[in-house]
């Protein structure tokens, strides 16, 4: 929807940028996201509901821990929760929907994790140093890069822009006490009027973390290394060619909540972009990108002390794709056209090593070399009705096909589905309409939408995927229908000089809601599992979210923000859905004066009473955490040093939440220090 609140947004930075960017390039991006400055002229702001500023190049003083992981940045959003299987690679849950129902892209590029157990969401293959911000769209507002139910998160790359010649160098370093995490990074950027390039590097090395009361959580260590480069060249009047590479490698990643760890998670993400920003009014921006990314994920249990049987579960995912986006303006109408397509290959295997070494290895495809092809078109019209109100309409249509390429894999699945064909084609649709009105600081908006999605590779073609929280083996179902969602959303906000308040809510009615259903006829494969669940569809399920945000400027230097979020998810028989957040709250006081800033926050969840026992959930008690941080900026003229000192979970509470896989406790008291040097 429209401008909404741009929380966590580092506005001073943007306005500063605006000044330094030559006019021709001051196109869509930077205008778009300085929405707070703009009142009703927020048209180009399009569908993004929330922007979280990330990045290490310009460290936000508002961010209490600038060198936190992307996961921690995203977790600040009222719409996002993080499902944790350990200290690393959390799974973003948007509007209480997991990654199958949402769309996570990097600069619009489709990427698919290579792990059958969702241990490598897309967000785990990038670093804060790669990104400038995350744009969060709820529901069908997020369908411009592909089909979604819950919404989208687009991770936008950090990069320079053309301008006066400038060379920048930065160093980032951090330490966290709870897991002895050592963070080190550096960045170099150069630009002139015809060329820019940014290189950066980030390394994290963490030991096991300690939960509250000093309990060590074994197998929660990780090492991660990320290097990225992006380079743009002006190849003519208003024309830009840009190449981007991200290489990310994590080793020795423990997943304390799971029976297996990851010895390697490696991604190479590349893209080439051509952008044309004509001066004529009709077409304002035409961006075309081709991309390729490849992911290798090796899951194994070699380091676990006692396993009933040793196994390796590597997975690979390769995606090639393109998109071409066109923005045009016609009178009061702002059109957005996006033509996009991708081709993905997902393969995962399981090899088990029998105790008797003379026996043959036990091998199966857990993802049977599934090829997904998608070609879609998206159209949006965003128009100004009068000075105060605007309307947005979007529609998309895509052709989606899955094909099981491996005969071995197809034969395996035909054990369960003898009639199954190798290929399955679908048409996916999305429609949404929003209206908003903004006058005298009082703003409201309503929207409706309809969209559907194809089942994920696991849901359609997974073969004996063990779910350790439910203790069931999951089998995919190639006969699943599209899951479709009918949604409604509304918000109301009031903005005065020293006060901002907003209430927003969304409601999803999801038909053919895909879940696992126990099939008592089948016996599990995994040792100790209770049974087999086949992916199947509930008639429908509903998810309702409502959040309340308030920001009061108590003093010019003192800001108090609060947030309460309530969610409810149930199926057509009133059975609770899994991983729905209980009531959560956050309240923080931010003091900022000159070069000094301080923050104190309280956050917590109420007791999770609407837990989903059908899906193996157990009640989780409430918790409350206290956090504090202090920041100071040393200014030596040309170079600057930001320092942040802080403590999380000040009272060292031993706690777990509804979103902790197998209820492993979260980190206890954590002291951190972040230092950023910029030259």
């Amino acid at each position, binding site marked *: 929807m429209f401008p909404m609140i741009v929380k966590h947004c580092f506005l001073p930075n943007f306005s500063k940028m605006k000044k330094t960017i030559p006019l021709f390039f001051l196109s869509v991006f930077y205008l778009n996201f300085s929405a707070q400055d703009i009142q009703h002229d927020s048209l180009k702001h399009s569908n993004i509901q929330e922007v979280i500023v990330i990045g290490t190049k310009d460290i936000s003083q508002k961010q209490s821990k600038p060198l936190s992981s992307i996961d921690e940045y995203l977790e600040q959003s009222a719409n996002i929760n993080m499902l944790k299987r350990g200290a690393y690679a959390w799974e973003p849950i948007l509007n209480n929907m997991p990654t199958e129902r949402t769309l996570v892209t990097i600069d619009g590029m489709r990427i698919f994790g290579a792990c059958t157990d969702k241990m490598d969401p897309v967000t785990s293959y990038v670093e804060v140093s790669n990104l400038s911000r995350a744009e969060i769209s709820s529901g069908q507002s997020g369908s411009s890069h592909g089909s979604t139910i819950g919404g989208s998160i687009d991770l936008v790359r950090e990069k320079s822009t053309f301008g006066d010649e400038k060379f920048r160098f930065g160093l980032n370093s951090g330490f966290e006490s709870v897991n002895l995490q050592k963070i080190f990074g550096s960045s170099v950027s150069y630009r002139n009027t015809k060329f820019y390039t940014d290189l950066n590097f980030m390394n994290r090395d963490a030991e096991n973390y300690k939960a509250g009361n000093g309990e060590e959580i074994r197998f929660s260590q990780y090492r991660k290394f990320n290097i990225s480069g992006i380079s743009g060249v002006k*190849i003519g009047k208003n024309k830009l*060619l840009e190449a981007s590479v991200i290489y990310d490698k994590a080793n020795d990643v423990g997943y304390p909540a799971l029976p297996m760890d990851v010895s390697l998670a490696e991604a190479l993400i590349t893209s080439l972009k*051509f952008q*044309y920003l004509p001066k004529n009014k009709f077409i304002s921006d*035409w961006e*075309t990108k*081709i991309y390729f990314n490849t992911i290798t994920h090796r899951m194994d249990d070699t380091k676990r002390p006692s396993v*009933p*049987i040793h196994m390796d579960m590597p997975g690979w995912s390769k995606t090639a794709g393109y998109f*071409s986006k066109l923005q045009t303006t016609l009178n009061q109408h702002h059109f957005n056209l996006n033509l996009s397509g991708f081709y993905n290959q997902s393969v995962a295997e*399981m090899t*088990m090593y*029998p*105790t*008797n070494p003379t*026996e*043959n*290895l*036990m*091998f*199966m495809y857990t993802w049977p070399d599934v090829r997904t092809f998608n070609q879609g078109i998206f159209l949006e019209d965003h128009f100004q009705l009068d000075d105060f109100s605007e309307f947005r309409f979007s529609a998309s249509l895509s052709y989606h096909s899955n094909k099981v390429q491996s005969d*071995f894999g197809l*034969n*395996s699945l*035909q*054990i*369960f589905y*003898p009639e199954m064909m190798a290929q399955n084609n679908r048409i996916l649709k999305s429609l949404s309409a929003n209206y908003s009105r903004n006058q005298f600081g009082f703003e409201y908006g309503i929207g409706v939408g309809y969209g559907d999605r194809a089942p994920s590779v696991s849901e359609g073609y997974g*073969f*004996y995927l063990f779910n350790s929280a439910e203790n069931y083996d999951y089998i995919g179902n190639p006969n699943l229908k599209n899951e479709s969602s009918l949604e409604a959303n509304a918000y109301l906000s009031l903005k005065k000089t020293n006060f901002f308040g907003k209430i927003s809510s969304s409601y999803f009615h999801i038909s053919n809601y895909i879940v696992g259903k126990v099939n008592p*006829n*089948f*016996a*599990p*494969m*995994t*040792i*100790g599992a209770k049974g*087999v669940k086949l992916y199947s569809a509930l008639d429908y399920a509903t998810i309702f979210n409502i959040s309340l945000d308030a920001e009061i400027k108590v003093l010019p230097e003192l800001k108090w923000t609060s947030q309460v979020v309530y969610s409810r998810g149930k199926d057509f028989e009133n059975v609770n859905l899994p991983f729905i957040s209980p009531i959560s709250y956050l309240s923080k006081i931010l003091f900022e004066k000159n070069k000094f800033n301080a923050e104190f926050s309280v956050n917590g969840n109420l007791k999770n009473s609407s837990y989903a026992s059908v899906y193996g959930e157990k009640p989780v008690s409430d918790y409350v955490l206290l956090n504090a941080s202090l920041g100071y900026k040393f200014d030596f003229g040309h170079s600057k040093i930001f320092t942040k000192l802080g403590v999380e979970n000040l009272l060292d509470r031993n706690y777990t939440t509804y979103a902790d896989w197998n209820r492993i406790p979260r980190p206890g008291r954590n002291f951190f220090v972040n230092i950023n040097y910029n030259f």
Partner: protein
Amino acid sequence: MKFSLKIFIAFFAMTLFLTSCRTSDDPVTPTVNELDGLNKITEVSNDTHVIELYSASGTTKMGYNNLKIRIKNKSTNQYEKSATISWMPVMHMTSMSHSCPKSSVKKISTDGTLYEGYIVFQMADNASEYWDLKIDYQINGASYTATTGISVPLESKKTVTSFLGSDNSRYIVAYIEPRTPKVSVNDWVVGVWKMEDMMNFPVADGLTVKLDPRMPGMGNHSSPNNLDAKQVQAGGFYFGKLSLTMTGYWKLNLQLTKADGTVLKGEPVTEANPASSLYHEIEF
């Protein structure tokens, strides 16, 4: 704009090129060699003929063996096309001799030279006990015979069982198909024979072979959608479905039952009883 067009044209051209490459497979010329896929096990001569014995592997083994025979006339060097063959495998034990289940020997095709049948060796040979195969045949009213020793080494995997059923008859159950198991639903074929006396083992009719495949190496898990084996016609083999969800070592736990449900041999697999006393083993 120019740039992106070029890229797309290049991609398109590449696609065309790749697609056109695929169609250049040479057509396979059909050959009619009777011995395709067969290997010679042994040959034995008498005064008039050389008798050649073939199987897919070129060996004989414990359990079910599909065997092919052809007879070469020593004087004409031609293969005989109109022989009537019968055979008798015999195990010479230290204290006694016995035979095993076997089929009759039939010509495969009228124009061909190969004759075919099966023999189920229910035990292996050893230093003092051995198998031989006596082949009797008539050509144009004249009778001939030849006998060859047959090597039946001990197999590490059990694919044939000989046992005393609950009805006090001796039975032999042998695994026949799949020869090369796959991670799939396999067509599963077993044979069941009854021992009438030491030399006669006719097919046992009207029974059921119940199947419960398990992986003892991995928590003894089973597999879904198996089908117990039944005969399609009297005198024939038993056909069922065997689902194998992964490669490795599988134990096929069996129960042999009569039409009324009486169990002749074997027990259901339970927590307390990890395996049936009647089973076959496969590994792939």
